């Protein structure tokens, strides 16, 4: 049962398209699990469409239509029309975007080790302002206590964890703002997998450095990463 939902701010920015990609990924992931937020998004999208329709009309020249038709005519016919067929992966238990980002295979990801029970794998969401990762906490394990410089969003994909305030389950959308301290502990009976995105990734890196981050994958990190750590 989902008890933590994105607030109106996140939902509105998502529907409007102004939410940064990594945070939008978190909202989309929550929507995968939450029908009541899907209804809200439907209505908020409707608001967007209404505002869109009310705009004063900008001038459009006939030549622009002609240009478009030329483009359409020069396209190979095969590229057209088949848009309805989209391979949707019904096998995956992961939300669509997470599945795509990981190729549905968590074992193939590069996992970094944080302490004994926690693994972290960065995802490329095309958002340089934030660091987005999958976080794996072994049953009963805990993420070392940390403070955030920026805001952190976490969505649980599997298992559950708790902190001082509450216990969270699959689909929950948990926001921790800057200055809040917390120490998530995975439940004893099941490993926990989360999607998490954090503002100000450099601070995150420093935080990892203080924890004595060890890199367990055999790939070398890009240049910029070396400097950051």
């Amino acid at each position, binding site marked *: 049962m989902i008890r933590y939902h994105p607030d109106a701010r996140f939902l509105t920015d998502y529907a409007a398209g*102004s939410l940064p990609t990594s945070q939008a990924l978190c909202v*989309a992931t929550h929507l995968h699990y939450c029908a009541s937020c899907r209804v809200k998004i439907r209505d908020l*999208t409707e608001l967007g469409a*209404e505002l*869109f*329709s009310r705009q004063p009309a900008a001038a459009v020249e006939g030549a622009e*239509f002609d240009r478009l038709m030329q483009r359409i005519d020069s396209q190979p016919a095969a590229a057209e029309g088949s848009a309805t067929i989209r391979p949707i992966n019904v096998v995956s238990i992961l939300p669509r975007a997470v599945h795509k980002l990981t190729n549905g295979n968590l074992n193939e990801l590069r996992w970094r080790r944080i302490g004994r029970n926690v693994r972290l794998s960065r995802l*490329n969401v*095309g958002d340089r302002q934030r660091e987005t990762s999958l976080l794996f906490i072994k049953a009963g394990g805990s993420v070392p206590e940390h403070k955030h410089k920026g805001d952190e969003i976490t969505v649980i994909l599997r298992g559950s964890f708790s902190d001082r305030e509450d216990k969270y389950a699959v689909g929950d959308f948990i926001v921790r703002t800057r200055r809040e301290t917390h120490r998530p502990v995975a439940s004893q009976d099941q490993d926990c997998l989360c999607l998490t995105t954090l503002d100000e990734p450099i601070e995150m890196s420093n935080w990892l450095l203080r924890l004595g981050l060890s890199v367990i994958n055999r790939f070398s990190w890009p240049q910029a990463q070396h400097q950051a750590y």
Partner: protein
Amino acid sequence: MNPSRNRTMEFDVDQLDGAGASDVRSGHWVDCLSRVAIQRDRTAFREVFDHFAPMVKSFAYKVPSLEQPDQFAEDLLQETMLKVWTKAASFDPKLASPSTWIFTIARNMRIDLLRKQARHVVNMVSMHAEDEDGEVDLEDIWFEDENSDVFNVLAQQRSRRQIHDSLKTLPPEQAYVLEKVYMEDKSHSEVAAELSLPLGTVKSRVRLALSKLKLIVDR
């Protein structure tokens, strides 16, 4: 259908006030889109283009501090309408009204173009190309065709009418903030920074607006 809805169908509200009434002629655009999808009907497509292209362009111009606004508007129009043409077959009138469908396409294309632009700028500065491999597809985050369990056109029309009727009752500062968030591609935080307001103030203005529009109320 309730009687008031039937009555408005008799004349073209678009021509009367031009204000968000495109859903009233929804049936006509559904018809055009299906002719585009099935017969690749160019006359029907031209009609859709003529009606929606000016909105798409305005929507492009709303993005603040573009380096080349005309180029951006032209690109957004081309990309959006190309998609309308190629994806017309996937438009399902049971799930969405044409104006909602086209809005989501324009919104997604705008995010996409802005993202490409930003990447271009970054690449120019850092002198090496960003690794695009494995980067998430925009459509996997901002769905155009999922969540069909809750997307039905009757519910949409109901909320659309509600929105249409109550938008004009919003206090200016609330309408202003909504306009910024939806049309100017600014997140709550960016609006707050621009207006030098605390984030909480922006949030509460939006929340008040939404509850006036009977859209969502936070738990």
